């Protein structure tokens, strides 16, 4: 499917990266993409694609050339009206981005995150105890969904009811970065109802006095941002903070259950637990892709990209690039996995990543203390989305330690 253009040296890839079959199992396609060349032309959408680690990493770290303010999905905000008011964090460049980012850095700092640990541990122990009693359960819904859906909105300061809207909103927002395929259309159909619910929950009055949400509004009280911007940052937290950790934890549980020898290595050395999560993010990246838009003409690896052109970065392909990782297709919890680009990199690198790491660490630790064996009882079912990768169902059985 890959052929060199006759008028240039740029490899052309005809396959649709957002084809449902490829989304369900993207790894062969990613290999094709990486091996085609450092920069490829994705004919289906007429835009650029990057699949190698070095180029994805460099692009993420060059916001002056590859901007976010024209949208980080396929839609170019300079030409099309965005489906929602653009994020003041994700979809902005410096200096505007820096102001919002600085506030979120303070709110989600390692010190702030450390304070969550004991509440997270209590919640994890309760959830894990309950599933172990059953012996067989769905690790996707009963653990990977249940735990973050309890602790993260609590940390933000949301009320306890109707939390299924949060997962639906995340699913919509991540589908909306992709092209107008069936996933996109289905998400847009439910967007008005779900968006209304979210916007309502981002108001100061709807949030508890002590969560991340209230801390964001405290910055509005200081005059650093407007009341409206504070609400927008709460929306960012709720969009980016739940679906992603649900998928990340699900991918970790799926990978551990599918590789029982890795579970045993972890049992023998529980200090690897944080590394398990980073290796999971490398191996089965919950956020597969993001776009950037060129701000000027630029040459990448001898290929001339014009101004205002979309570039699709395959984070997941970069995380399995053999030029960067030894045996990239092995799930190896002992490898040094930091440096993966599953959280992005540079100024737009995931600001909530320390919360995500804590959630994963705490849940896996609770499981590790109580479970001797963790095994799949049937094939997991993949969850399709234009941007994220995750598991709808992971049927497992456990034996108590």
């Amino acid at each position, binding site marked *: 499917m890959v052929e060199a253009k006759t008028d240039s040296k740029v490899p052309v890839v005809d396959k649709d990266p957002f084809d449902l079959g490829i989304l369900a199992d993207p790894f062969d396609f990613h290999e094709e993409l990486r091996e085609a060349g450092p920069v490829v032309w994705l004919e289906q959408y007429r835009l650029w694609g990057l699949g190698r680690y070095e180029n994805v990493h460099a692009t993420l770290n060059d916001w002056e050339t590859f901007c976010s303010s024209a949208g980080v999905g396929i839609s170019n905000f300079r030409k099309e009206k965005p489906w929602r008011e653009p994020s003041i964090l994700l979809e902005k460049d410096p200096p505007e981005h820096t102001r919002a980012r600085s506030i979120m*850095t303070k709110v989600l700092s*390692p010190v702030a995150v450390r304070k969550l640990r004991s509440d997270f541990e209590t919640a994890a122990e309760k959830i894990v105890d309950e599933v172990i009693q059953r012996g067989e359960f769905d690790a996707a819904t009963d653990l990977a969904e249940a735990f973050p859906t309890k602790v993260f909105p609590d940390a933000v300061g949301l009320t306890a009811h109707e939390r299924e809207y949060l997962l639906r909103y995340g699913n919509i927002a991540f589908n909306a970065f992709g092209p107008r395929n069936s996933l996109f259309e289905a998400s847009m159909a439910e967007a008005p109802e779900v968006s209304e619910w979210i916007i309502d929950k981002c108001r100061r009055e709807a949030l508890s006095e002590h969560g991340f949400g209230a801390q964001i509004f405290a910055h509005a009280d200081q005059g650093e941002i407007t009341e409206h911007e504070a609400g927008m940052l709460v929306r960012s937290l709720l969009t980016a903070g739940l679906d992603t950790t649900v998928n990340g934890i699900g991918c970790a549980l799926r990978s551990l259950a599918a590789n029982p020898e890795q579970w045993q290595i972890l049992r023998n050395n529980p200090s690897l637990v*944080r590394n398990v999560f980073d290796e999971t993010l490398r191996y089965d990246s919950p956020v597969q892709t993001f776009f950037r838009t060129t701000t000027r003409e630029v040459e990448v690896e001898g290929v001339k990209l014009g101004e205002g052109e979309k570039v699709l970065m395959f984070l997941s392909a970069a995380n399995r690039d053999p030029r960067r990782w030894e045996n990239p297709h092995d799930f190896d919890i002992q490898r040094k996995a930091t440096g993966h680009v599953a959280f992005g*990199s540079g100024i737009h*690198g*995931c600001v909530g990543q320390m919360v995500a790491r804590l959630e994963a660490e705490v849940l896996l630790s609770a499981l590790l203390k109580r479970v001797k064996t963790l095994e799949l009882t049937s094939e997991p079912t993949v969850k399709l989305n234009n941007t994220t990768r995750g598991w709808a169902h992971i049927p497992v059985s456990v034996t108590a330690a």
Partner: protein
Amino acid sequence: MPSITYVHPNGERQTVEVKSGTSVMQAAMAEGISGIVAECGGSAMCATCHVYVDPEFVEHVPDVQEIEDEMLECAASERRESSRLSCQLVVSDEMDGLVVHLPETQV
């Protein structure tokens, strides 16, 4: 190529040569230097690549930016005037010979 020396808390010194444009954190990771965790991979989000720049070189490194400043407050070891996140220290030819001291702990 500029060289960087990492000094461990026990006094052991490791010197590596790095390409300009590489961060002090990246160089440490590539060489497998223990004492730098760099969990976030260089996004100034985790404060686990904290180093103390040797007094002799404090003048030669670029200034601390706002987000790095916030993050240094979160470091596990004591913050000093010479504290930096090594992911934010991009090596240039002028920084040849840079010496950084590793803290007791990063987490």
